[in-house]
């Protein structure tokens, strides 16, 4: 039966080419927009190298300190993470590192713009970078403030023309670093993993950072399993509740919590101070994304429905004949819905191919540095699901209208 429907559907599609074109144009481009957005979001939020283990990582990325006359929201300082995160007992491993910052190097008479992040030794054990040569620096390197660095292959090409970089040196911010390892370049969308040069924390010019509650540091915690998150959070919250302010007249309230990277983004999106009240910012962000997608899809759906209605009119006499010979409403509805799903799946396939092309173009012009967007099976699956839903949604109403047509009227080519 389904086979017959599909055969029929393809025949119908070939008959009125203009209508088929309109439908396919709408469906495929709608899916392009949705799939490109999905691929970009997926690239941001799905764990991928070097953050593959992030499904069991929570961290502290932002804290807020407030008083009556305003306050600060930003990265915690080294002192804060050192005293309130490092001692957490239930963690498997904890890493402290600075936010990546832009830097400028003058190398062999050329200016090189780059990004630098200062990290401890554990950073390299929690994140799984792909080392092309050499290896990471260690906590011992950090403790004794050795001027060693890890760079990306992209930096290697800029500094040494792609030749092996091990043991070679470069000058950054007035000091000379020796290359200990080279990793594959990381997309800028990796909030924790991204940088182009990594150096030990203690190679900073002064030790001022060690005294600061607010600054430019973050910490991540590798839990033994996700099930440990609540325990870690409770322990952390308990510790933070004992925080004492140096000058309670100026600042007297602290907002800090352990988040997954997605939660951190959701919090940033909702505004840090406010979102602490709602323990579940990700739900809101998901809701907002879903709502935006639904809003966007309204117009294409309406368009498809009206086109479908028009198409059915054309086939009024065919429907009349089928009804006269006893076809049930259900059979007619399912026939038409199958036809519509066939149409949307074809549109979906075109849309998928177009999305791949658009994403390749976005990656090529480096709209987002070092990020390579591509479609994966997950997005393909969601895209197809979406296309099906789209097809069913826009097919059901016209089909229902059609099935209610009186056979006699239908045979005469009558009105709906």
């Amino acid at each position, binding site marked *: 039966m389904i086979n017959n429907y599909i055969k029929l559907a393809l025949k119908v599609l070939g008959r009125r080419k203009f209508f088929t074109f309109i439908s396919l144009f709408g469906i495929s*481009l709608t899916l392009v927009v949705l799939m490109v957005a999905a691929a970009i979001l997926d690239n941001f939020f799905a764990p991928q190298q070097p953050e593959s283990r992030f499904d069991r990582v929570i961290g502290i990325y932002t804290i807020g300190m407030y008083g009556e006359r305003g306050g600060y929201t930003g990265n915690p300082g080294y002192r804060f993470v050192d005293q309130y995160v490092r001692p957490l007992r239930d963690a498997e491993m904890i890493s402290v590192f600075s936010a990546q910052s832009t830097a400028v190097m003058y190398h062999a008479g050329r200016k090189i713009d780059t990004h630098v992040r200062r990290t401890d030794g554990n950073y390299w054990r929690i994140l799984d970078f792909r080392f092309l040569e050499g290896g990471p620096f260690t906590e011992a390197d950090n403790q004794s403030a050795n001027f060693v660095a890890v760079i990306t292959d992209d930096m290697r090409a800029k500094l040494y023309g792609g030749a092996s970089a091990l043991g070679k040196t470069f000058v950054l*911010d007035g000091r000379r670093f020796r290359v200990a390892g080279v990793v594959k370049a990381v997309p800028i969308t990796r909030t924790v993993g991204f940088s182009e040069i990594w150096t030990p924390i203690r190679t900073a010019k*002064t030790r001022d950072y060690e005294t*600061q509650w607010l600054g430019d540091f973050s910490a991540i915690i590798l839990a033994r399993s996700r099930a440990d998150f609540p325990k870690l959070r409770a322990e952390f919250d308990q510790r933070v509740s004992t925080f004492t302010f140096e000058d309670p007249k100026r600042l007297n309230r602290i907002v800090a919590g352990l988040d997954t990277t997605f939660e951190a983004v959701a919090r940033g999106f909702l505004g840090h101070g406010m979102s602490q009240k709602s323990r579940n910012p990700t739900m809101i962000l998901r809701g907002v994304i879903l709502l935006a997608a639904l809003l966007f899809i309204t117009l294409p759906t309406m*368009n498809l429905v009206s086109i479908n209605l028009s198409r059915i009119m054309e086939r009024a006499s065919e429907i009349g004949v089928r009804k006269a010979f006893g076809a049930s409403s259900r059979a007619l509805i399912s026939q038409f819905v199958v036809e519509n799903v066939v149409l949307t799946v074809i549109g979906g396939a075109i849309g998928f191919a177009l999305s791949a092309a658009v994403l390749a173009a976005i990656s090529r012009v480096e709209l987002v540095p070092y990020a390579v967007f591509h479609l994966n099976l997950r997005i393909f699956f969601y895209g197809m699901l979406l296309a099906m839903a789209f097809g069913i949604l826009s097919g059901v109403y016209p089909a229902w209208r059609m099935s209610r047509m009186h056979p006699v009227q239908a045979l005469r080519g009558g009105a709906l």
Partner: protein
Amino acid sequence: MIKHLLKLVWNRKRANALIVAEIFVSFLVIFAVLTGAVTLISNWNRPLGFAWQNVWDVRMEFDLGTRENGSDELRATVMRMLDETRAFPQVAAAAVSDTPPYAFSTAMGSREINGKQVDLVLDNVTDDFAEVMQMKVVRGRWFNAADDAAHHQPIVVDTNTAAAIWGEADPIGQKLEEEDGVFTQVVGVVEGYRKDGEPSSPMNMIFFRMSPTGKYGRLGSSILVRVHPGTDPSFEEELAARLTQIAPTVSFRIRNMEKMRTNMLRTRLAPLVAGGVVGLFLIAMVGLGLTGVLWQNVTRRTREIGLRRAMGASGKSVNRQVLVEVVLLASIAMLIGGIIILQLPVLGAFAIVTPAAFTAGFLGALATIYALTVLCALYPSWLASRLTPAEALRYE
């Protein structure tokens, strides 16, 4: 004639409701896109209030704590770096700023003045800032060394701030309360200043004078350097080496403001362009869909049209009937859309867009929808007018 057509439209209300709904949503989309575009274009044509050419930004990396606790020692170091920079023959002027143009960092505040909440953008700058950024003082004067003796911290506001707080009154000499009993006093007014550059809407800017002695003013984290035109790029490395030498504990990086500008524009424009492209696609889709539906309508109403022709209606009048019907549908849709859009100012839309951009977007959307619907109806209506009575009546 119109009344009669309205009746025809009403008789087919179920089929028409969908078309009306579709035009209604398209109207909202076009309104949003056009208002955004008009806002962008009018912002682009507005003066920036400064000149970014030949300016370099020496961005120092103090973290929040260092700056807040702002040791005198650090301030002295920065002032020494400023003096050293100025000593180079390539440098025309140099000044300290906290949140320079195109830097993606903004200090914001809001003050309640005369019971009115005014949102402000703040910066702390030294005396040469106006010269470095080539700003135009329209009233009063810019900061100078004599301000060291001033009782209240001197501030310079831009014309937007002056208008927002004091309206027509002369702002020079006016005081603002910063904290309990601590006042700042206006010494000058500069032309409207938009630090985020061309795409940004006008904002209320206040410059606080940062005194070199540390009497007041938050320590800025950028040294802005205006070099003479044609300065060799290699000077940057020379400057960097010199600054590293005199301030070994300060981490900094030098950026060309031209590059910062490109970066800012790209970041600001990318979402607008993406939104515009998606909007255009939606409109194209609706246009095609509408053409299809109207075409189908004409075919379905062949007999009705045939009857009219047989009764003596000319092809031209049939053509007009189809067009006017579409225009009627569009008018109904936009009446609903218009009622909704006109509620936006009540909800505070003018805080985001100017009334001019709003009006332009509204009228533009009206015109676009009429043009689009008529365009979509042209081919179907031509088809309808070509039908001969005999052919039409025979059609089954």
